[in-house]
């Protein structure tokens, strides 16, 4: 037998794909443009970029559109695309104090250097459906604002910097390596280093990070942090210029950053705060805070609670992994199921429960013994 073309399976796949595409264009309404998604559904694109580990707002908008709003699927599209890209360079390390913050709250202090910046938030509004939006856009509510040019934004000292200068904050141990290990290029082995933990959490699925972080607060853990601050803003991306050798800013990324202190006294003689850190692409305060709780919990390195075990958290927090494996259960499993049927029938026969007469009441162990169990 030579070459045999298989077409049935491929035609079915194509049709299924076409049906899926049809869902998007089914109604007789205007198509949703990538510009609209990027501009108006920034939370979705931010989540896709954060979980996909690729800062590309326009591609994220495309991914959201293509995935029909499924953020994990959109993040998956970005990751698959990202894995085909060549890596040209690594950026220079950025000081978060340089952030041009559009929002910054410090729950730990009433006032902090640089001030509290409430920024754009719905945190303190009532969650009521705004039926006016059904009728169309009301227009820019800030159009009448009287604004003076305040000049360049000032550098915001991070709150943990203040605590650290007073010696109140526990200093993490120096890592054993100089460069962080890129976990997309070298897979994590357990126990992981902290740089690996932070990377994996930063790409973690928002719901999973939130849920596991919440588990620690809910009582399955000891960490109940005080947030030093949560900030949203733009951070410069700098690379070393190939000719001059100087750092040049090539673009900015919108990020959410969160830092927390935890009153766990590491040393009795010298009580200090432990701390946690969270950072995500896009505006996603929930995930950044959840990550902060998990970072602080994992640093406790205890077997007692799920959120405190790096292995448990890292094994379950990735959206690509959990989504893929949960949904793979839809694949056919009849080979393995036949094998399971064989076991359960054999045991029922042994226990005299079976009456279907498939096998005589002989010992199954005496029958169909494979060669391999003899000797090598």
């Amino acid at each position, binding site marked *: 037998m030579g070459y*045999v073309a298989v077409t049935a*399976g491929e035609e079915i796949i194509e049709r299924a794909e076409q049906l899926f595409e049809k869902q998007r264009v089914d109604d007789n309404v205007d198509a949703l443009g990538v510009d609209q998604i990027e501009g108006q559904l920034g939370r979705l694109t931010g989540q896709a970029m954060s979980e996909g580990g690729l800062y590309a707002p326009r591609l994220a908008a495309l991914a959201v559109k293509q995935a029909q709003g499924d953020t994990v699927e959109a993040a998956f599209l970005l990751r698959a695309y990202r894995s085909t890209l060549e890596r040209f360079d690594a950026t220079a390390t950025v000081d978060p104090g340089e952030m041009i913050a559009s929002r910054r709250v410090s729950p730990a202090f009433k006032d902090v250097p640089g001030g509290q910046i409430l920024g754009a938030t719905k945190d303190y509004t009532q969650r009521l459906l705004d039926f006016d939006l059904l009728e169309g856009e009301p227009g820019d509510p800030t159009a009448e604002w009287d604004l003076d040019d305040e000049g360049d934004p000032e550098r915001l000292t991070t709150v943990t910097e203040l605590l650290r200068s007073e010696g109140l904050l526990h200093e993490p141990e120096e890592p054993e390596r100089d460069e962080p290990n890129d976990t997309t290029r070298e897979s994590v082995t357990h126990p992981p280093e902290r740089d690996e933990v932070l990377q994996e959490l930063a790409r973690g699925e928002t719901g999973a990070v939130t849920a596991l972080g919440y588990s620690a607060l809910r009582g399955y853990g000891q960490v109940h942090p005080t947030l030093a601050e949560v900030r949203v803003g733009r951070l410069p991306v700098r690379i070393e210029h190939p000719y001059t050798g100087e750092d040049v800013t090539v673009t900015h990324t919108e990020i959410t950053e969160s830092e927390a202190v935890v009153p766990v006294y590491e040393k009795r003689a010298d009580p200090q705060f432990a701390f946690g850190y969270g950072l995500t692409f896009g505006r996603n305060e929930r995930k950044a805070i959840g990550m902060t709780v998990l970072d602080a919990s994992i640093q406790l390195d205890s077997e007692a609670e799920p959120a405190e075990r790096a292995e448990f958290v890292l094994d379950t927090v990735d959206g690509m992994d959990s989504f893929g494996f949960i949904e793979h259960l839809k694949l*056919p499993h009849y080979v393995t199921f036949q094998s399971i049927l064989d076991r359960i029938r054999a045991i029922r026969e042994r226990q005299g429960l079976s009456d279907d007469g498939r096998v005589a009441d002989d010992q199954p162990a005496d029958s169909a013994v494979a060669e391999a169990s003899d000797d090598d």
Partner: protein
Amino acid sequence: MTEQPAADEGAPGEGTTDGGTPTATDTADGGTPVPTASVDAALASLEDDGLRGYNYAYLDEHTKREVRRAMLKAVAIPGHQVPYASRPMPLARGWGTGGIQASLSLLGPGDTFKVIDQGADGSVNAANIRRLADNTADVTTTTDTTGADLIQSRHRIPEEVLTDDQRLVLQVPITDPLRNVDPSDAANRRRHAHANYGKMWVHLYENVVEYGEINIAARYPTMVAGRYLMDPSPIPRWDVPKLDDADHLTILAAGREARIYAVPPHTAVEPLAFTDREFTVERFPDQACHACGSTDTYLVEVSEEATDRGADAFETRYACNDTSFCEKRREHPELSKDHHLDREGVDWGPGTPDAAADDDTGSAADQGGTGQ
């Protein structure tokens, strides 16, 4: 390289065709760039009908080299799980991403590729994987086991004997057999390092105490070369003996868990069992494939409406799981599993001459059982 190179003249097929053997392209020192001239030439010789904007065989050359290095290490330490940086693929994790990375790292334009999912070439997921290789690597595809250089399979080893110029890539969902007795990889890595498999032996013993026999169905814990305990992927127990002293190379690749391991040719593979509770394969007493009549193959049961016995009646029919071999058997019912070899009586697990001294191991338990 991320872009398709310009279609310059070049020696067709040079370079990537030898990707067939894992050793051939891995001679460069670490850190030096991969010579891409020969790859460019191979690409230039291809028809321009691949995926636009993507590299030959989807993955970039550095990644493929890294995967091949992991395979080499896996071959050098049979049964040991080698970490590698599993890339996100355009397939969902858990759907064969490890297998396809291994396959794409091995395939060259001269290769013939077969993909099976649960024994069937026609399964939609198998078709999807085959389509990716077809689109990006320009390989020939086949459903004929004996005609393939590389076979990627989910949960089955074909019924026809694999030879020393064939490679089998098995998709792996869970890499560590010890996961069943301890979920922690850190702890299990220590156990593997010390060859400390006591916890698994206790698990098997508890099985016997509780059920009278070992109740592990697929994913049967298997000792490789007397050293590493291995999860042979969820192949049925039926297929496990085929790995023992095989002529072919088996690569087991997990994408989600980012591990590769291997069973090199002629390696001892022994399922764990007790002398008084021996390893048993699945039994199909008195059953034969309803299509080809085989009694020496792995069968799966299908419930069908038996309209002649009333509206709600069902009957169970058995069919060969390996659809490609079943098709051949329908034309040639006497075809043996080693029909394509120049020797006879090759041991290929249950139902082959050396394994059971007859060809009906599958119905060896027919001591008066009536079936249905």
